[in-house]
């Protein structure tokens, strides 16, 4: 074994010495103890490793992460029993909404489960489905959504049935029809979803926007009473917030 080969092997030796009994390091360790130059190199290498490790272990997780993890697990128990295809994403969304409540105190502390499910639905559809809406009504809505500075439309401005009947992409969420169009704003792609509200106050979404961020993307959900809405994107929650 050459000194270079010994250095290569000793690079995997942990600075706390817990590998001293590992036969894979035996010959390299013997060389380091008998060769002053190699021994010096090994000493410096271990000291450097220990210094880097000590620094990196000082990095603390953000406050609230632990609570968010535990909340997510509680949600997961419920979602795995219901088991729809996008249920795990919806469970994550619900957990994330709790997390957002913990981190920023801006979202509802206990968001309605359906709102989290709708956000999860929007994120899952964004990343996993083939998109594309047709029809004049859809085109008009897309043009409006892509207008710089335009706020999200309300149900009073949209003819839901006409859009559905003239080629707008239509999905199903818990038995309710959902319209979806894609639009680009400030160079980012967004997905707009709307569905009729149910008889319960506020429908699926809380009146004010609630935000969900997951590894796959972010979504906002809100309601005007008549319709429930969601916007999802991979551009992040701040990009979505600017639309509202």
């Amino acid at each position, binding site marked *: 074994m050459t000194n270079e080969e010994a250095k290569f092997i000793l690079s995997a030796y942990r600075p706390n010495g817990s590998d001293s009994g590992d036969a894979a390091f035996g010959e390299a360790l013997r060389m380091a103890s008998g060769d002053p130059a190699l021994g010096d190199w090994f000493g410096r290498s271990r000291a450097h490793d220990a210094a880097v490790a000590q*620094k990196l272990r000082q990095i603390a997780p953000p406050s609230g992460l632990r609570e968010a993890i535990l909340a997510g697990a509680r949600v997961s128990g419920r979602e795995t029993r219901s088991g729809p295809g996008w249920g795990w994403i919806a469970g994550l969304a619900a957990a994330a909404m709790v997390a957002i409540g913990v981190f920023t105190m801006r979202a509802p502390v206990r968001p309605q489960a359906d709102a989290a499910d709708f956000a999860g639905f929007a994120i899952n559809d964004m990343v996993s489905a083939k998109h594309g809406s047709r029809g004049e009504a859809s085109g008009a809505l897309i043009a409006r959504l892509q207008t710089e500075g335009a706020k999200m439309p309300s149900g009073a401005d949209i003819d839901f049935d006409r859009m559905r009947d003239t080629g707008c992409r239509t999905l199903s969420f818990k038995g309710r029809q959902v319209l979806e169009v894609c639009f680009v704003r400030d160079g980012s792609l967004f997905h707009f979803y709307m569905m009729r509200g149910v008889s319960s106050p506020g429908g699926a979404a809380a009146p004010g926007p609630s935000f969900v961020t*997951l*590894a796959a993307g972010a979504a906002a959900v809100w309601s005007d009473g008549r319709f429930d809405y969601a916007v999802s994107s991979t551009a992040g929650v701040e990009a979505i917030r600017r639309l509202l």
Partner: protein
Amino acid sequence: MNNEAFAQLVDAHYAPLYRFALSLARNGSDAGDLVQQTFFIWATKGEGIRELSKAKSWLFTTLYREFLRGRRRDSRSSSLEDLPAGEKEPAAEDIDRVARIDAATVMEVLQTVDEAYRAPLTLFYIEDMSYQEIAEALEVPIGTVMSRLSRGKSQLRMALERAEAAAGSKVLPFPNSKGARAS
């Protein structure tokens, strides 16, 4: 697994998992998401692992898989063959340098190391994993782990040296009050 046992599992691993995720994702928000996602998957699938001694490896493997799955592959990513070989030997000043730099900056510098090296390096430093444990967690051969540790450490030392030089070039030395003179 009951709630108490799950909470103990979270307490034991969420901080090192977050540090690992932070080194991979390179921002706190995505790192938090990855950690939450990992424990969520545990809650839905991982409870089948009855040997808690394997839970740590399972969690790190799952987080790494989720990172790879969610990441967008961009054209800038290099194959290992394209990466430069390590050349920076550890010197005494390298050790002093690390002592001078704060933890957040060390993490930022680690995040600049090529991804293929960053994952094993982080597990080595943060979780004190052996090369065998790293190989198991990242699902790569032992020889690959050794090679990546050797090259990655060299790349990290070079990056730390560059980071300190860059910081030094932006900071004017503060005059010693006794030695300062009006000119």
